[in-house]
């Protein structure tokens, strides 16, 4: 056993050394690639592939559309499309597109935009790559876990297409930096995951006059539309009043099938490419709704009561309103939508100190053998993933109707204990959930329904994994 431990330690140490060497080499490669790109940009484009044609008439005429021999070969299948052709590709290589969010939507969008030859591709994100991103954020690889998503996504885009410029904006988009960042691009792709960001990005696109390709996905459903295109409606024309914060579900709470944002992200790349190359009919004034479970795609029309397509009454892009850069910078989107710009989990604090107990205190009571009943108020499909031993699953939504079950569990435990010793024991009632929010709501309910001693286990299963048992799976 001991030699096993030694082996493991040696392997871990060697892995660390190799990873550190690899990271040094990677950054050196990136620096050299950047240098080379700069040098190539200074030379005439035809020399980029090393086979320098010296100004023959054929090459001279080929250059009229601005595509180098390398580009002609790389994008040949685009050029063969009569409806796209050299005109479409030339526009695309001269265009610039900003993708906000390198997550489930941004991953495929960025890969296709890089591959298609968008001249300058910007990526905004402030997050790092995590293992639970991998099932849907297919642009990232395991080697980048723990590193900024922007770095990971940019490296992937460059490895797909080293001839385009990839710009990294490793920061959260805010009203303070949005105008400066977004104004550097022709088209914006909203691949974010929260309501305030969506309002902020749409408003900024109106202020700057940029078309916006907006996608969203949750569970097994997706939505896609193009805002502020050629006088068309903006996000606020459609949704002047934000939804209640409780109606904004997040992938980290409600789940998402990996391929669903993948499909929507691909469609976002498609719409952005159509706008950049000026082909076809963008999805403006219409919305595509994807219901993956029943394999239904529906395209609905929302062209509003209009003056040139916009809502007359829109507070941002309407006929009689003028939303200025100053107004934009001072607008509080978090207050407007009553939800945070980053998708950080909510942390409620509803109960008094004496109604709460830490995971380690609870663990101590269990170890000491004190009698207790533990209620886990997560939904049943969460409980199936992982739960603590002896926990009873009563989902919060059903709690009120199942109080008798709690009473009898308490009585049963009391009966069992009193048969073991002569004293009549006091049975503790503890409530837990995933992160410690629903358990507080449950304790409030229990205390008002005749269980005054109910206590919330602070931080839920995640707290337990942090404080007591690091081997407990988290999700």
């Amino acid at each position, binding site marked *: 056993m001991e030699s096993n431990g030694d082996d493991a330690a040696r392997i871990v140490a060697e892995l660390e050394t190799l990873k550190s060497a690899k990271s040094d080499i990677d950054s050196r490669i990136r620096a050299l690639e950047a240098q080379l790109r700069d040098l190539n940009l200074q030379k005439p484009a035809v020399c980029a592939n090393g086979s320098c044609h010296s100004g023959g008439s054929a090459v001279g005429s080929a250059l009229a559309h601005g595509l180098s021999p390398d580009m002609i070969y790389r994008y040949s299948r685009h050029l063969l499309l009569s409806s796209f052709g050299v005109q479409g590709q030339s526009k695309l290589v001269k265009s610039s597109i900003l993708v906000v969010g390198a997550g489930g939507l941004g991953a495929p969008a960025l890969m296709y935009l890089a591959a298609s030859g968008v001249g300058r591709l910007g990526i905004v994100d402030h997050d790092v790559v995590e293992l639970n991103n991998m099932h849907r954020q297919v642009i990232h690889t395991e080697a980048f876990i723990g590193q900024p998503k922007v770095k990971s996504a940019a490296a992937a885009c460059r490895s797909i297409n080293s001839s385009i410029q990839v710009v990294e904006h490793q920061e959260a988009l805010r009203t303070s930096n949005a105008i400066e960042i977004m104004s550097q691009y022709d088209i914006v792709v909203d691949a*974010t995951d929260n309501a305030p960001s969506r309002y902020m990005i749409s408003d900024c696109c109106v202020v700057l006059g940029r078309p916006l390709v907006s996608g969203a*996905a*949750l569970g097994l459903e997706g*939505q896609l539309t193009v805002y502020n295109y050629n006088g068309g409606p903006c996000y606020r024309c459609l949704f002047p*009043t934000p939804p209640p914060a409780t109606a904004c579900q997040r992938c980290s709470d409600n789940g998402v099938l990996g391929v669903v944002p993948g499909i929507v992200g691909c469609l976002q790349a498609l719409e952005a490419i159509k706008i950049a190359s000026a082909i076809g009919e963008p999805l403006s004034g219409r919305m595509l709704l994807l219901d993956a479970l029943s394999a239904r795609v529906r395209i609905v*029309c929302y062209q*509003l009561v209009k003056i040139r397509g916009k809502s007359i009454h829109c507070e941002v892009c309407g006929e009689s309103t003028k939303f200025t850069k100053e107004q934009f910078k001072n607008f509080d989107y978090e207050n407007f939508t009553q939800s945070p710009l980053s998708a950080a989990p909510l942390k409620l604090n509803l109960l008094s100190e004496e109604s709460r107990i830490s995971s380690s205190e609870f663990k101590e009571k269990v170890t000491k053998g004190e009698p207790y009943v533990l209620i886990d108020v997560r939904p049943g499909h969460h409980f199936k993933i992982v739960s603590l031993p002896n926990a009873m699953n009563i989902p919060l939504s059903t709690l009120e109707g199942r109080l008798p079950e709690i009473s009898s569990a308490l009585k049963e435990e009391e009966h069992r204990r009193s048969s073991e010793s002569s004293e009549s024991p006091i049975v503790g009632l503890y409530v837990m959930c995933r992160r410690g929010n629903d358990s507080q709501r449950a304790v409030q309910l229990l205390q008002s329904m005749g269980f005054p001693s109910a206590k919330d286990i602070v931080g839920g299963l995640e707290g337990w994994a942090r404080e007591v048992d690091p081997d407990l799976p988290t999700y």
Partner: protein
Amino acid sequence: MHLTLEFGGGLELLCDSVKIHNVDVELKKGLEKLTMKDLLAWVRTNLIKERPEMFMKGDTVRPGVLVLVNDCDWELSGQLETTLQEKDVVVFISTLHGG
């Protein structure tokens, strides 16, 4: 009047997780037409099983819900005053924000 009602974007969770409802809505006595206002009241009474505030606010839908009558925004047909016809398809979709 026979109608097809669809709920999406999470609104189906309010009606037993069923997305498509084929329903027959009877006209109130003395009335000759069914408007969206009448239909919303009917839906709230007959289909919404929990948290009605996640579907309605006042006599209309809550902010963030798109209403489509035969695949077109109800803004185009008169919102609450929209008159429904036999076999119309009415879709209620909550806007998504995830990604």
